[in-house]
């Protein structure tokens, strides 16, 4: 039963490797946005440090957002998405596999590069660890929720902007919890509550969103 899912995961990763510019643009966008902030608000280290959690999280949201449009649209355009409906596997699982591949290609690199940017914004080592943990729990949520928007805007003109309008409000909870986790450590409290809630949210999204996305794909292909 896992062979089709593995085949799909391998396919998406191979495609990403053949076109590395897609993944690199997302990371590049993240780096540039974060790097622009000190230029705009001045070099005061303490001030930058207090802004850092919010800046890093908003930049991560926008970077993921940027990559969402391509999640299904390439497959939609060349007809492979249609064939995927005919694969003898639940569409929800196939969608989940595609989202996992999307996270490996865009979310994980953001987590891995975030310490560098955190240093630039003057975060301390223990805060950087919490930031990475929060992003590790949070970026899958971003991919999972975003997939619903990507599926709902399949084949529409100006889909990218529409995804942003649909999905950005839904990104508020992970943003609050993720940035709050780092804030808590900064002020000497424990980040455990924030991280636990983020984890719970990820588990919930993991179970609920693939089915919603699958339903949206079916409707848009009808």
């Amino acid at each position, binding site marked *: 039963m896992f*062979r*089709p899912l*593995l*085949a*799909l995961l*391998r*396919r998406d990763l*191979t*495609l990403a490797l*053949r*076109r590395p510019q897609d993944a690199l643009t997302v990371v590049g966008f993240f780096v540039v946005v974060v790097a622009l902030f000190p230029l705009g608000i001045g070099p005061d280290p303490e001030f930058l440090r207090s802004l850092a959690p919010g800046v890093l999280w908003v930049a991560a949201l926008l970077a993921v957002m940027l990559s969402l449009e391509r999640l299904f649209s390439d497959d939609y355009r*060349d*007809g*492979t998405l*249609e*064939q*995927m*409906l*005919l*694969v*003898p*596997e*639940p569409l929800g699982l196939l969608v989940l596999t595609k989202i996992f591949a999307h996270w490996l290609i865009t979310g994980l690199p953001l987590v891995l590069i975030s310490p560098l940017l955190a240093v630039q914004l003057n975060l301390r080592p223990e805060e950087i660890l919490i930031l990475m943990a929060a992003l590790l729990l949070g970026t899958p949520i971003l991919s999972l929720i975003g997939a619903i928007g990507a599926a709902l805007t399949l084949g529409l003109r100006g889909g990218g902007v529409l995804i942003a309008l649909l999905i950005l409000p839904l990104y508020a909870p992970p943003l609050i919890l993720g940035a709050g986790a780092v804030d808590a450590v900064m002020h000497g409290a424990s980040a455990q509550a924030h991280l636990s809630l983020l984890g719970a949210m990820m588990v919930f999204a993991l179970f609920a969103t693939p089915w919603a996305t699958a339903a949206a794909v079916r409707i848009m*292909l*009808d």
Partner: protein
Amino acid sequence: MADREFRAVALAAERGDRRLFDDIDFTLSPGQLLQVSGRNGCGKTSLLRILSGLSRPVAGQVYWGDEPIQSVDGGTGSCLGYLGHQNALKEDLTAEENILIAGGLGGGRPDREDVLAMLASLGLAGYEDLPVRYLSQGQKRRVALARLLLQPRPLLILDEPYAALDVQVIEVLRSAIEAHLARKGMIVITTHQAVDIDGDCHNLRLG
């Protein structure tokens, strides 16, 4: 190959407000071919998408045996293969990779030798390791056909399979279709070209 009948009961479809067709009924038994004909815009592709479970009809139901096509045991894809207007190929992958991955997605374990032999029989020997992007329209169509023919499905639904193919390949496809019928497979096909097929052929005219 197939042991069940494929039935359409009182199918109707609309595009916008316009009724495309009404009350389409047919039963296809193992070893039979149904050719759907009609002028452009009469709903051939819509009918084929409904038959393959991709779209829902306004009225009526499609059955595989006694089960509605959407809820066949093991998924719709376990009983039928569909070739639409789009070739469903990944441009960045080679012909061979495209077919192997599609086979893996279908749950099979495709054999590399079979894939190469099938590509060669469709006149694509030497093009296996080229990204599909560099192939011509007709060659892409052939890769899509090779993918379909390598998936052992009892029912094949082919939407204009001859489009962009040259005479030799049409001949290969014709013998593949006849072999499929001889193995008690079923085929639903739309085409504008008259190609004589030996076997139990039926015709459905729309519009």
